[in-house]
């Protein structure tokens, strides 16, 4: 009952509205929650990130504004709304204005195919996963627009790096999703979640609990970190490297819009990772199914966000050539091996044999590829030199 | 005017625009852009006939367009690589100056 509370609310509101405007009201009631919930989640994530990073770096985060700093997003919003909007005179004004708008539009669209709960999806497309990736591919163009329109060499450099990085990491992202699509037999996100909603004994049927699914999930998350330009892949926007990359020349509200777009992209791709690998809205243990499905989705989303923040605070930034080598020479072959392993899993009979075959495929490939990547760089063992 | 005729007219207009651009513009990259527009116009034609045509059940139209998109992508990649190579050689992408073969 609590599980379907939003669906029932929508149907009750639809029943009480006149028949002439029912389609419009239906669309509005579907879209408005997405437009309200995820920006609020963005606000909470900014505080969580700054506090979390602060604690990892052995300092407090922001703690002035509200109770333990929780009203910090309000202060940030006020600041960015009241800052002067400076546009350089030699910038291309039309493209400069359009870039954050295109980014925002493209950042909100993928939420339409994420199933947030049982029967709670905005658009049950037959090819939902493909829709997600198509819209993600369009966002590269908006990054380029932002970087080029500023007529600033650093900005253009940051934009080209960002686009090259996004294109390179799109391939392992797509390939690891293909393994899931193959196993589920459908491109529709609703069907993929429903295939993972069963239990065998105490273990759920989530794809992350299979050898190819586990590897695929790790590859997917690494590629997702790179796609959304999060650390350790944030060279295009690194503050110490290139002075904030492709959004140098943006100030005030447009900068906040870029920030919003980036975080929304992060949530969307985490949502897709949850849908494909972590079982969407399904509970992890059979005796926990009384907790509503949408709470499970947001709990998993929160877990992934904490993972992103943790990785940002821990790992150093990758250099551009290290980044590209990692994508093309390690992740792409690994993703192909995951696809093969998923195929073997699908067609072998249940039991120890298919676990063994899948794990052997992945382990052999990993060892060979890791050796290949390692020997190329000839990293010496670290030596310490102390002051004497 | 039915849906089929509307789609066909749009694709003819797109083809004409692509052709005009490919014939008049001076930069090699824009000629390639015109060629891509012409390919897209032909694909739109296929999809229109698949949707409104008599043999509505067969998948032939869609499969053809899928392969056409793939071939166009490969052709764009190779064409742009050629433009890069020519630029590296002659330092220009201006068609009126790339007359080396004519002499």
């Amino acid at each position: 009952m609590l599980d379907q509370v939003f669906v029932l609310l929508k149907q009750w509101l639809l029943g009480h509205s006149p028949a002439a405007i029912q389609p419009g009201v239906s669309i509005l009631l579907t879209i408005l929650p997405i437009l309200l919930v995820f920006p609020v989640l963005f606000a909470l994530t900014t505080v969580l990130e700054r506090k979390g990073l602060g604690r990892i770096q052995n300092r407090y985060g922001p703690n002035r504004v509200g109770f333990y700093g929780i009203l910090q997003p309000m202060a940030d919003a006020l600041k960015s709304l009241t800052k002067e909007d400076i546009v350089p005179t030699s910038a291309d004004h039309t493209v400069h204005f359009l870039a954050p708008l295109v980014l925002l539009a493209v950042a909100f669209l993928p939420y339409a195919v994420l199933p947030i709960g049982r029967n709670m999806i905005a658009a049950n497309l037959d090819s939902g996963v493909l829709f997600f990736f198509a819209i993600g591919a369009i966002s590269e163009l908006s990054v380029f627009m932002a970087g080029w329109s500023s007529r600033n060499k650093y900005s253009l450099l940051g934009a080209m790096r960002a686009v090259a990085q996004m294109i390179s990491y799109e391939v392992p992202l797509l390939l690891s999703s293909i393994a899931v699509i193959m196993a589920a037999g459908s491109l529709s996100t609703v069907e993929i979640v429903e295939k993972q909603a069963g239990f065998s004994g105490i273990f759920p049927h989530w794809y992350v609990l299979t050898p190819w699914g586990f590897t695929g999930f790790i590859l997917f998350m690494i590629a997702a970190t790179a796609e959304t330009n999060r650390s350790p892949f944030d060279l295009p926007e690194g503050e110490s490297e290139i002075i904030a990359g492709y959004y140098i020349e943006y100030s005030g509200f447009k900068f906040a819009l870029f920030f919003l777009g980036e975080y929304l992209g992060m949530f969307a791709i985490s949502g897709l990772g949850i849908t494909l690998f972590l079982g969407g809205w399904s509970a992890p243990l059979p005796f926990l199914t009384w907790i509503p499905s949408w709470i499970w989705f947001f709990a998993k989303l929160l877990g992934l966000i904490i993972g992103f923040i943790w990785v940002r605070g821990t790992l150093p930034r990758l250099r551009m050539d290290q980044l590209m080598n990692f994508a093309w020479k390690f992740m792409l072959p690994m993703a192909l091996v995951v696809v093969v392993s998923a195929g073997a899993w699908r067609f072998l009979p249940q039991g120890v044999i298919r676990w063994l075959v899948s794990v052997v495929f992945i382990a052999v490939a990993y060892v060979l590829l890791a050796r290949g990547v390692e020997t190329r760089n000839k990293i010496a063992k670290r030596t310490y030199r102390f002051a004497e | 005017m039915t849906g089929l005729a509307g789609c066909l007219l749009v694709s003819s207009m797109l083809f004409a625009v692509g052709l005009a651009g490919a014939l008049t513009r001076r930069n090699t990259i824009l000629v390639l852009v015109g060629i891509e527009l012409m390919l897209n116009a032909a694909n739109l034609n296929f999809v229109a006939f698949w949707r409104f045509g008599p043999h509505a059940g067969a998948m032939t139209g869609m499969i053809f367009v899928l392969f056409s998109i793939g071939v166009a992508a490969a052709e764009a990649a190779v064409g742009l690589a050629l433009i890069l190579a020519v630029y590296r050689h002659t330092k220009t992408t201006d068609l009126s100056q790339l007359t080396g073969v004519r002499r």
Partner: protein
Amino acid sequence: MREMTVPFLILAAVTLVGASAAMLFRGLVHCALALAVAFAGIGSLYLSLGAQFLGLAQLLVYVGAIAVLIVFVILLTRGGDSDSPPLSAARWPITGLMVAMAIFAILAWAVLHSFAIHTAGTLAPQATIRQMGTALMESYVLPLEVIGLMLTAALIGAVIVAMKENPR
């Protein structure tokens, strides 16, 4: 005129404006961005005609890859710095325009005087992904393999052609 619905007209207008802008603008990067708009318009037209997979594949391949590739090559060949010189390649650009207009006139005449005017609206064909996958793997498996081979060859060829030559 019953099937020339408003969404179709809007999408067609966006596509044609984008395509004309791609061929008319002076700055190369503006042309490339207008081209991306035109591609997105065509993808939306496919979606409105019921070809779901095709529309999304068009967006993924054309807007996400080919438009970005064109932009990269424009920047690598210094097209983004200065305005390109006046349009014409030929001595009289008007001949190109006349040829294009003549071809459009012939095509439009052919469309308007053919059976297309009288085709009644048929039901949208069933085009699930499952059917498309079955068709690709059963009836069209040979073209599928050939296109895989061709894409590999094009990939390797493009990389080799565009690679910097080793300094001798």
